[in-house]
């Protein structure tokens, strides 16, 4: 029955049907044909999958990032990044990576990061002598840091599904985010020295202070979010809602670039993006319920553990599965479908759920830049007007960098677990 269900799922997906329709229609068909279970279970499981206050952090983080973007955030963060690292070899490309990291501190979404930073910086890099191919690949991949550096929509869904603390997951993403950002910057430096690309002059103190002054309000947002969560002032969801008010205040009163008449469309678009995500989670929840009803998690765990109890081998297996899954699924449905399968095995061999969350997110980052389903590739294709295959080729060298990062993060658990454990000890 399961083989038939998966075949049907892929067939319906191939038609270009919305993913949530394909998932829930497959569950209906499988239950209707093979069981006597009343089909009311499908709407019921879909509802239960998204009836969660934790998930409500998603619309709020989307909204605050959008308010900040309209309020002129990207330009300020790019200026700051340029003042900080622009004078180094490969400085412009490095400041692009740094700007993606800053933007990721405000946005929890990878495609949004590619659009916001890449949209402005790709033309700039090309003008300074970088090839279009290098620039496209760099921002398609660096933008994926959006879901690793907190806040992160994928961590929120992971927390909602597994019950792991959102605050701990957010903190766990910080060092891995810096590691991958650092690796990407290193690659930029090597590339530009080889390609003999001129660098920015060293900025004067006044120029530097100006860049900080102009962007300090933007960078206050992550302080409010993380500080609020760790200070025990509010939950992740409340922090997200407060960040909306903060973003509105900064965009409207401080920078004055946000206009009240923009609010309607921004709210509507946020509502639509939220709906799209929640529906995928709802459909995936129904699908995950189908797997659980067939006792797949238990059977899979027994099979895997009969092969090996070694932690490194299980981690390797998880990575391979997630890398392949990431090519075909986007992260929201992947977390809902795969985590109930992987978590019991992880607990058996002693993998920390927080560490597993970070590994999962890094795999999903790679999934976002691999065909056929790669949201970042789609965005990069749109903002650069290149063909899908040209964008895909441009990503390849950076993919190697990401894979190095993945290996480091997988086999050096303290990179992920150090910060959360330091804070929980207090």
């Amino acid at each position, binding site marked *: 029955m399961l083989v038939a269900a998966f075949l049907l799922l892929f067939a*319906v997906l*191939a*038609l*270009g*049907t*919305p*993913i*949530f*329709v*394909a998932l*829930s*229609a497959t569950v*209906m068909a499988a239950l209707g044909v093979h069981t006597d279970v009343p089909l*009311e279970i*499908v*709407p019921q499981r*879909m*509802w239960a999958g*998204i*009836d969660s206050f934790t998930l*409500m952090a998603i*619309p*709020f983080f*989307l*909204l605050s990032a959008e308010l900040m973007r309209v309020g002129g955030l990207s330009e300020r963060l790019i200026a700051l990044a340029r003042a900080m690292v622009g004078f180094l070899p490969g400085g412009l490309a490095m400041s692009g990576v740094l700007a993606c990291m800053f933007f990721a501190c405000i946005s929890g*979404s990878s*495609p*949004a990061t590619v*659009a916001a930073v890449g949209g402005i910086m790709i033309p700039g890099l090309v003008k300074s002598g970088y090839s279009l191919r290098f620039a496209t690949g760099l921002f398609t991949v660096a933008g994926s840091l959006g*879901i690793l550096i907190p806040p992160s929509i*994928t961590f929120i869904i992971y927390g909602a599904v597994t019950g792991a603390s959102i605050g701990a997951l957010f903190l766990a993403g910080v060092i891995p985010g810096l590691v991958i950002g650092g690796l990407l910057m290193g690659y930029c430096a090597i590339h530009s020295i080889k390609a003999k690309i001129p660098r920015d002059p060293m900025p004067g103190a006044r120029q530097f202070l100006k860049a900080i002054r102009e962007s300090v309000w933007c960078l206050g947002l992550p302080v409010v979010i993380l500080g609020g969560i760790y200070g025990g*002032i*509010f939950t992740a*969801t*409340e922090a997200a*809602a*407060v960040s909306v*008010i903060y973003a509105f205040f900064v965009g409207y009163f401080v920078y004055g670039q946000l206009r009240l008449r923009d609010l*309607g469309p921004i*709210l*509507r678009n946020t*509502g*639509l*993006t*939220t*709906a*799209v*995500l*929640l*529906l995928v989670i*709802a459909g995936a929840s129904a699908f995950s319920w189908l797997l659980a009803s067939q006792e797949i998690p238990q059977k899979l765990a027994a099979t895997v553990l009969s092969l090996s109890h070694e932690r490194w081998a299980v981690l390797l297996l998880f990575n391979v599965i997630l890398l392949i899954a990431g090519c075909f699924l986007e992260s*929201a449905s992947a977390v809902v479908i795969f985590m109930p399968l992987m978590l019991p095995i992880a607990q058996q061999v002693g993998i920390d759920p927080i560490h597993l969350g970070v590994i999962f997110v890094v795999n999903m980052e790679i999934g*976002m830049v691999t*065909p*056929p*389903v790669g*949201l970042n590739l*789609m*965005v990069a294709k*749109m903002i650069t007007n290149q063909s899908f295959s040209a964008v895909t080729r441009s990503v390849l060298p950076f993919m190697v960098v990401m894979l190095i990062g993945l290996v480091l993060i997988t086999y050096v658990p303290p990179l992920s677990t150090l910060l959360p454990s330091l804070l929980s000890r207090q």
Partner: protein
Amino acid sequence: MAVWIDALDRTLARFEDMLLGAAIATGTVLTCTQVVLRYVFSSGIDWSEEVTIYAAVWAAFVGAAAGLRLKSHLIVDALVMWAPPRLSGVLANAGLVVTLLFGCAFAWYSGSLVARTQQLGQLTPALQVPMWIVYLVMPLSGVLLALRALLLLSGRDSAPREPAKT
């Protein structure tokens, strides 16, 4: 007939868009008020979480049709993109037929879930509103999704595709 369909098209679109925006605005205002009340006045609104959740869940289900109209659903478009234009048109229409059928089935079974919940008399935890009223958005969502799939099948295309932001 065409005028009538146009009016239906626009009315549905306006209703969906309004609900999407209103749901997000409601949730934001309620959750922030809640934080302020708790820290400044040591009190709170006990139904604020519940309304925030239901507003977003309502937005999600109503957004099913809006996402189809604005082409913002997450989809796997590899095959449709690589196929020759005529075949990809056929595939896309087949996809819409699946969506149409799913919309009808979803409306039917969630409708029967509504009926069963009404018999059980289940209430929401905080507001104590009958749960079946909250569930009503699901059959509505199925009907809206089926209607939108029909409109698209009849050749009414709307916005160009924009990738969603995950």
